[in-house]
């Protein structure tokens, strides 16, 4: 493996893991449920993405042919993560979790919970 | 290899394929066809089992290497006199049970016949296998089938008892795996013969760990065998399930006994070097206590099925005695007794089913109620079975009991065993005579219009009851075979012998 590729892989790895760590820090420190919900989206997309690209490059070099396998994982995550987040959000709404006091438009949350339009009574 | 050479695996494959066939639409939708097929299969299994029995008598131990991989690498089935005797027993029980259930018990829920077949597959597999982990697998086959069968017909009581039975056995299965892991981790093999060969070669620290694992297995088998203090689940479990299932379960405790015999009586038996007979110091008091507590419970029983279940426990204790006596003679006595007690208890469970059916709400409890419509024939069968279970002549119970008493030769052992076995017999006599008078004689005279037993039910019971006098009339042949089984069992098989047998076959 060339030094260049090695450097690229290394940077991608460290970058990816930092993104994931940041996501997890967010999950740990954010003040309410809905803000915490934003955190995993980072790790799943960019963080894992970087690491997977790193792995893809690494194994392409090691195996001596192009290796796209890891892209599949990324693809799956890109498809599933937002739906998971959506489901989690729905669950949070349903659960009537506490919201940070300064959350704007809290009445919209109620509308959302009732599946109504914002202007409906 | 011709078809005849595959005979050893037939007791596992026949029920398997029949059970699977029963799941397909044309059979699954017709109870009548299911009955015909299972009864036919049961008869076939009886035939196969007995053919195998005679084959072994003529040609000695049979070995079947699955996947054509020789021991210790592949799984092998070992058909020696003991295992085939047990297979015969299960085949006969299976036939009786399917016959009995065909009278209508199989209507009370789905999949009765396939489950019975799977149960038999598990039981036969457990008897035949020569591999420790495969034993676990077949234990699970027979357990999962028994879980489902036990609650066949439903009802609060059955479900509640089933919960006890299932969860206890789940703990048991986990312990089984711990034990297997331990044994594999020290011995590096799973084949019984190979394990037995390696046990004497262990280093001192490995020895202790192996001992731990082996004794853990004792707890596992003990749970299945319902030995003290692991027997508590049994009375309610057997007493609340349906008659044919209880009858089939009569052999389930024997699977535990059989395994103790194979593992603790032989593998960790006399030839195990420093680990020789490690289970005996435990088995001896447990056996005696099992008989004692079992007998007390027999006296305390308030219904026929509970009584019979407690008699099963007494028989377990008695069998444990024969294991812990650790002689060929005792083993032969035990094997004879095992055959007898299983058949007798199974028949009694079936009989209790008919009695229950004819006594209406009183079921089989010892309370005064109307006369049963078929009190005469039932009473006659009851007396026969009671005689058998107490161990009185002319039925086979006395032979078994006398053989066991004879096999206790050391005075220090006899002092314990004789009074207990004879005392348990006396208690059984008291309890069964009370039971009989309560069920058949103490009636309030009214005539009962409840369902009469069906001929096929009586056929099933008769099949089992008929074995008891046959075991006396042909007692010489049967005990000869038991002797052969005991000799083969106690001699054990080394890996080399096993492979020689396999190559000759």
């Amino acid at each position, binding site marked *: 493996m060339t030094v260049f590729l090695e450097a690229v892989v290394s940077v991608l790895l460290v970058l990816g893991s930092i993104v994931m760590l940041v996501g997890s820090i967010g999950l740990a420190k954010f*003040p309410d449920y809905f803000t915490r919900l934003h955190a995993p989206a980072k790790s799943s997309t960019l963080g894992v993405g970087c690491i997977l690209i790193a792995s893809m490059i690494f194994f392409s070099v090691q195996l001596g042919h192009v290796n796209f396998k890891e*892209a599949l994982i990324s693809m799956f995550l890109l498809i599933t993560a937002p739906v998971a987040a959506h489901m989690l959000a729905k669950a949070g709404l349903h659960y009537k979790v506490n919201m940070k006091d*300064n959350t704007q*438009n809290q009445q*919209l949350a109620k509308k959302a919970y009732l599946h109504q*339009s914002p202007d409906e009574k | 290899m011709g078809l005849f050479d595959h005979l050893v695996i037939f007791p596992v494959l026949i029920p398997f394929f029949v059970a699977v066939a029963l799941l397909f639409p044309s059979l699954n939708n017709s109870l009548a066809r299911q009955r015909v097929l299972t009864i036919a299969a049961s008869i076939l299994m009886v035939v196969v089992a007995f053919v195998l029995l005679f084959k072994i008598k003529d040609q000695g131990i049979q070995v079947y290497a699955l996947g054509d991989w020789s021991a210790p690498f592949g799984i092998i089935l070992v058909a020696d006199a003991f295992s085939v005797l047990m297979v015969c027993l299960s085949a006969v029980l299976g036939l009786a049970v399917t016959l009995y259930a065909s009278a209508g018990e199989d209507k009370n829920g789905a999949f009765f016949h396939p489950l019975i077949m799977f149960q038999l597959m598990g039981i036969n597999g457990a008897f035949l296998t020569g591999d420790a982990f495969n034993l676990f697998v077949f234990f699970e086959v027979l357990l999962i089938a028994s879980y489902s069968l036990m609650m066949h017909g439903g009802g609060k009581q059955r479900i509640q008892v089933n919960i006890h039975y299932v969860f206890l056995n789940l703990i048991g299965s986990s312990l089984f795996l711990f034990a297997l892991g331990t044994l594999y981790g020290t011995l590096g093999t799973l084949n019984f013969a190979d394990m037995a060969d390696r046990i004497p070669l262990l280093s001192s620290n490995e020895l202790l760990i192996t001992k731990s694992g082996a004794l853990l297995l004792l707890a596992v088998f003990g749970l299945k065998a319902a030995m003290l203090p692991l027997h508590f689940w049994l009375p309610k479990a057997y007493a609340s399930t349906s008659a044919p299932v209880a009858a089939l379960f009569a052999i389930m405790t024997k699977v535990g006994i059989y395994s103790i015999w194979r593992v603790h009586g032989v593998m960790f038996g006399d030839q195990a070097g420093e680990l020789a007979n490690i289970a005996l110091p435990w088995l001896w008091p447990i056996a005696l206590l099992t008989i004692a507590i079992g007998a007390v419970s027999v006296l305390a029983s308030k219904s026929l099925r509970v009584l019979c279940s407690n008699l099963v426990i007494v028989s377990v204790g008695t069998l444990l005695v024969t294991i812990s006596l650790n002689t060929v003679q005792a083993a032969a006595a035990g094997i004879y007794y095992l055959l007898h007690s299983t058949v007798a208890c199974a028949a009694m469970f079936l009989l209790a089913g008919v009695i229950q059916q004819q006594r209406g709400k009183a079921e089989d409890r010892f309370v005064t109620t109307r006369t049963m419509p078929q009190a005469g024939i039932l009473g006659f069968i009851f007396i026969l079975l009671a005689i058998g279970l107490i161990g009185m002549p002319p039925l086979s119970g006395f032979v078994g009991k006398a053989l066991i008493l004879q096999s206790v030769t050391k005075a220090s052992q006899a002092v314990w065993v004789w009074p207990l076995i004879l005392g348990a017999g006396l208690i059984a006599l008291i309890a069964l005579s009370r039971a009989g008078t309560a069920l058949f004689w103490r009636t309030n005279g009214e005539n009962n219009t409840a369902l009469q037993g069906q001929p096929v039910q009586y056929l099933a019971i008769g099949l089992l009851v008929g074995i008891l006098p046959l075991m006396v009339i042909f007692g010489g042949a049967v005990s000869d075979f038991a002797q052969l089984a005991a000799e083969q069992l106690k001699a054990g098989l080394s890996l080399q012998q096993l492979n020689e047998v396999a190559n000759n076959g």
Partner: protein
Amino acid sequence: MDKVRKFIWFPTPYHSILLWLVWQILHDFSRGHMVLGAVFAIVIPWIVAPLSEKEPVAKNPLTVLRYTFRLLFDIVLSNYDVAKRVLQSNRSLRPAFIAVPLAINEPLPLTIFTSSVSLTPGTVSVELSDDRQWLYVHVLHLEDEQQLINLIKRRYEAPLKEIFGC
């Protein structure tokens, strides 16, 4: 549902191609697997056919590609933004709910749209109104509500409308 489905060799040709490609990715494009992959690419859609609802098909694959790259770019960009928020104090956070009026309501485009919203960090699609006219979104840090709504509609909804032609 009782009517007999007519047998179609390629009920979903795009799926078949995708499956074949995935199979090749998994097996590094060896010859044998080109055949085997083709077999699966044909057979699996047959199996799945009864379980698929009819969905609109993308009219122009190129726009799909463009959309994908735009999305990826947005993901990277907004990740940086969120990371900043994570590392800042919670107190400065100004979360909010917003309601985005929807112009598309076919299930597949709608799903892609809401997923896109969720994928770009900082926003999570929370709920749809029953009439599928509104999408409720939770925003991690909201500065200007209308601007954000417009951005979302412009950047994701409009191209999707174009792709699926609805």
